């Protein structure tokens, strides 16, 4: 006898302007549960950074900085920049798999903001980046690295790195939404990231590069983030690099977020 209706015997929370954020949070929780269930998916933000730290410290330390201890001061921020960039491929792969498995069709047929599934995926990734920074700094400490400024500057650096990661993530998200397979996502993102991470100040000072490469490396958004982290954690004037980093964050979001949202809306 009862004709089904949306509100029938269901107690629905008032619709409001915060729906988008609430729905994003629901979807971020979905990512977190999945991360918790498949911890091996965290290798790129746990074991890989440890491996990179050990390899780079002992292979290049002596040659580049004269000693491993001196190199660590330079290297840890550089590695954080590099690994944040590498870890961003994960979100592209996740979105691609969500799309191919049809779960996005379910979300798109629900009365939720079209931004929520993307924002949710990005928010769910914060945990990965926190873990990455923690492990990286922890490994550094074990090898003799020390933050020589104050806790507030350290925290500021962490927040800046996470913000950068979240803004950069829109690019691999876009790739994830247009590429036709997970393998393609991985190929495209890494192909872009390798030059971006190595043609930067992450591992060597840019002064030793040929001038054209140094020009690229100095303008590289990752270089600004890495420079900002070095200043914030080891002392120095951090205002300019932090400013440049924030500017790049804005640029990433302004360019890639609308494209990603459009790709998500279009994808059949």
């Amino acid at each position, binding site marked *: 006898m*009862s*004709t089904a209706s*949306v509100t029938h015997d269901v107690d629905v929370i*008032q619709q409001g302007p915060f729906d988008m954020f*609430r729905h994003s949070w629901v979807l971020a929780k979905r990512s977190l549960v999945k991360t918790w269930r498949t911890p091996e998916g965290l290798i790129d933000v746990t074991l890989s950074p440890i491996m990179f730290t050990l390899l780079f410290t002992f292979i290049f330390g002596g040659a580049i900085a004269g000693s491993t201890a001196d190199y660590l001061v330079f290297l840890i921020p550089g590695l954080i920049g590099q690994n944040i960039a590498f870890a961003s491929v994960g979100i592209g792969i996740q979105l691609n798999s969500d799309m191919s*498995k049809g779960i996005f*069709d*379910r979300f798109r047929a629900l*009365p939720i903001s079209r931004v929520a599934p993307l924002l949710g995926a990005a928010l769910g990734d914060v945990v990965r980046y926190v873990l990455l920074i923690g492990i990286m700094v922890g490994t550094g400490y074990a090898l003799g690295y020390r933050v020589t400024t104050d806790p507030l500057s350290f925290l500021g650096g962490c927040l800046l790195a996470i913000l950068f990661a979240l803004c950069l993530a829109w690019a691999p998200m876009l790739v994830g939404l247009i590429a036709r397979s997970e393998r393609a996502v991985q190929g495209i993102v890494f192909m872009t990231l390798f030059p971006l991470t190595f043609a930067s100040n992450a591992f060597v000072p840019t002064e030793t590069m040929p001038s054209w490469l140094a020009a690229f490396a100095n303008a590289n958004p990752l270089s600004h983030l890495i420079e900002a982290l070095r200043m914030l954690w080891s002392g120095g004037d951090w205002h300019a690099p932090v400013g440049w980093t924030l500017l790049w964050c804005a640029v990433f979001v302004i360019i890639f977020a609308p494209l990603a949202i459009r790709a998500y809306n279009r994808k059949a």
Partner: protein
Amino acid sequence: MTSDNAVEAEGLVKNFKETKALKGIDLAVPRGSVLGVLGPNGAGKTTAVRILATLLRADGGHAKVAGYDVAKKPSEVRKRIGLTGQYASVDEELTGRENLHMIAALLNMSGRSSKARAKELLEWFDLTDAADRTLKTYSGGMRRRLDLAASLTGHPEVVFLDEPTTGLDPAKREDMWDVVRDIVKRGTSVLLTTQYLEEADALADDIVVINHGEVIAHDTADKLKRVVGSQTLRVRPSDASQVDTVNAILAEVATDGAPVDEYRPGEYSVPVVDDSALATVVGKLAAQQVAVTELSLQLPSLDEVFFTLTGERQRPTADDATAGQEQEVSA
């Protein structure tokens, strides 16, 4: 809402680059009824469903679902529909219960009512025992059921089922049919696409046949069967020496004295007008003490339906069979 139709589409057109996926189709699902959209792969069934479920925009025509225009008020439509696609669009890494909680939360249901609704749906779909396992451990049939449960979370007025039983074995298919009947009993309107005439016949009040993006017939299952041709009664006698007796019995029930056909070696068939022929034949076989290993009443296959319908396209017998063509001209 003034309309008595839960779904109403007029002249839907959709082109994908060179391909004309929909050439102007009309569909109507009266409130509380089931419309079966029957057609082969690539006929445009899924495209039509995706437009009605607001996942795709039509290039022409318009459609209303639950009283709202799909192009102008998509979010009002989304509040009132459930969609179950050909593949289960549920999260494999979450448990059944988590999937339902997530959907409920996205529908703005409070924690309390989302828990209650998930519990209710899991019981209804016989998934209570598997509720707290991740979907990776579910069988194909269980995933389909959970997918359907997810679509019903928000008590939708209209449910779209896009080939809900494709790939399921016959027993699971029947289970799914029971569920669909149950949904309709609770007042939900259903648009169901299928490649099986049998399925449309079992569930739908009305059937629309589409081919190459056009509606080629629209009728009730019974009338459609009459248009397409009769059903076929098949008998395989256990004892080959009784063939003549069997043939004599079959000849008596055959439509318009049609000849008995040896469908496969040892298996004989005749076209019959309706179901009552089955009972007649069973009675006569028993009276004459003929044992049979197989006895079945078959609906015409989809191929036969299409052969008949497309062969008669120039002078259609079904009332609305020209609808698609008229639309194409006017588009």
